[in-house]
């Protein structure tokens, strides 16, 4: 184990629970030196605090307001490097069973110094890039995936509820999420988003995923396909045929449907 203290964040909505962790960390400091860089009272605050920190591990409570521990884990797992995660929970038989199945580390409240020390030593031993979260394990714990997309603009973290997103669009190097109230820059690629939220979104064309529930209808149009990055290749050969675009609920934007995706989209609209 390196001589450098482990850099930690403590996340729990109850102040005495955070106090207890701080005390225990002091108690085991000789065996495992640590440094608490930040504390947070819920997942949202934790993401904001973590934004500019390099963390070795996060001690995270499961049941919290706004964003719970499992949702926070899904976000932290996308960081590079991802911190190690140690869940701390009072009583949650489902979570505990899942932690064991996935070999994720967890502590039961009341937390005991010995168990905390062992968990921290494991984090130290894994070291650097090798640690971090197992995506498959997290998938098991939170099968519905993230409930928020994370947008970071000028150092401010913004969380956009996935259910508010009408469509996701890739433009050059950037992916944006469109909601009824605005457009937000994301850090994920369209392919990643499609893999994660395939049940909610359907591909309208090469550069766009549309929320299935947001599609209100379709109409003829969208001749100027070039702006959507769809021109060229096999599609351009059939330009004489009519093109379709999707009408969305709540916003005036139209989303062009590519010829390749059209059968699927039409089936969705008819079903």
């Amino acid at each position, binding site marked *: 184990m390196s001589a450098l203290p482990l850099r930690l964040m403590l996340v729990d*909505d*109850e*102040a*005495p*629970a*955070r*106090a*207890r*962790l701080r*005390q225990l960390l002091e108690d085991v400091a000789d065996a495992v030196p640590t440094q608490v860089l930040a504390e947070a009272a*819920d997942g949202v605050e934790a993401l904001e605090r973590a934004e500019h920190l390099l963390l070795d591990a996060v001690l995270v409570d499961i*049941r919290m*307001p*706004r964003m719970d521990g499992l949702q926070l884990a899904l976000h932290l797992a996308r960081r590079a490097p991802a911190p190690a995660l140690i869940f701390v929970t*009072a*009583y*949650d*038989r489902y979570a505990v069973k899942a932690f064991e199945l996935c070999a994720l580390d967890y502590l*039961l*409240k*009341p*937390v005991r110094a010995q168990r905390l020390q062992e968990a921290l030593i494991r984090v130290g031993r894994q070291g650097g890039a090798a640690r971090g979260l197992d995506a498959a394990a997290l998938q098991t714990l939170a099968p519905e995936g993230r409930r928020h997309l994370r947008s970071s603009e000028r150092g401010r973290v913004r969380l956009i509820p996935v259910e508010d997103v009408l469509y996701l669009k890739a433009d050059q190097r950037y992916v944006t999420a469109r909601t009824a109230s605005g457009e937000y820059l994301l850090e994920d690629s369209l392919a990643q988003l499609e893999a994660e939220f395939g049940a909610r979104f359907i591909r309208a064309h090469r550069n766009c995923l549309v929320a299935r529930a947001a599609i209100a209808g379709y109409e003829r149009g969208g001749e100027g396909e070039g702006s959507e990055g769809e021109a060229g290749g096999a599609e351009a050969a059939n330009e004489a045929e009519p093109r379709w675009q999707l009408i969305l609920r709540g916003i005036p934007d139209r989303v062009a449907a590519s010829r390749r995706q059209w059968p699927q989209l039409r089936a969705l609209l008819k079903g």
Partner: protein
Amino acid sequence: MAEEDESIRQFPDAAAMSAAPCGGWREWLERPLARGLAVFAASEALVGLLALMLRWGGLEPGLAAALGWGGAGAALALALSLALGARRPPSEALTEARLMALTARIRPHFLFNSLNAVLGTIRGDPRRAEAALEELAELFRAQMQDPRELVSLSEEIALCRQYLDLERLRLGERLQVQWDVANCPPDATMPRLILQPLLENAVYHGIEPLPAPGPIAIRLASAGPMVLIELSNPFRPGHVHAQGNRMALANIRERLQLFYGQAASLNVEVKGDRYQLRIVLPHRRETAL
């Protein structure tokens, strides 16, 4: 009911067993059929207890845990009442066992979080930690009392205040409670631990999941021949674990029914962002069922 050892009062089955009259046990046991029944009853009790001890660690937090006691308790009561024949009317034994089974238990979630909070407070504020442990002891004591006893409204209110004080240790300013007891009849009685588990529900579902929760409001008032208890808490759809909550309410409803028959009622209503619960009880002064 026979004198009981404190330690067995936690277990409804053992407690119900000790409720059997002691006189004449020996000659009664000489009879083969009676012995068979007694063995049956005892083995049922043992199996029930074992099952319950195993289950204790694995149940969803909440009154659901308490409901788990029901089956074994009722089976034992039935076996006992069969075995005892005319000595004890079956309905009384059943009622008692059912009450034992329905009496709210400490939620594991609440217990472990509270202990963790006390541990986190000991070094910084030892006096606060002491008070919290005393409050926890009072809650356990209340849960180990005879479930057939009725308590005065003020006693139940005092217990609720202790419970809320303990929760405040963990939740701090997030827990706001408004009491309205100006018209609370001082001499009225109610079954023990009706209000406290409902408050526990309100904290679990209405306070803990919300970042900036509104207050819990409690009102106890006299209404002619009845006593009115109203409780409301913040509500956000999707945050209530409907099933656990329904079971908790079914439990309390059944207990009210065992005490008051059709004279008492419990109704629930969601009004905007508030979850409102209303209990109506006959205004009585007796202290036992």
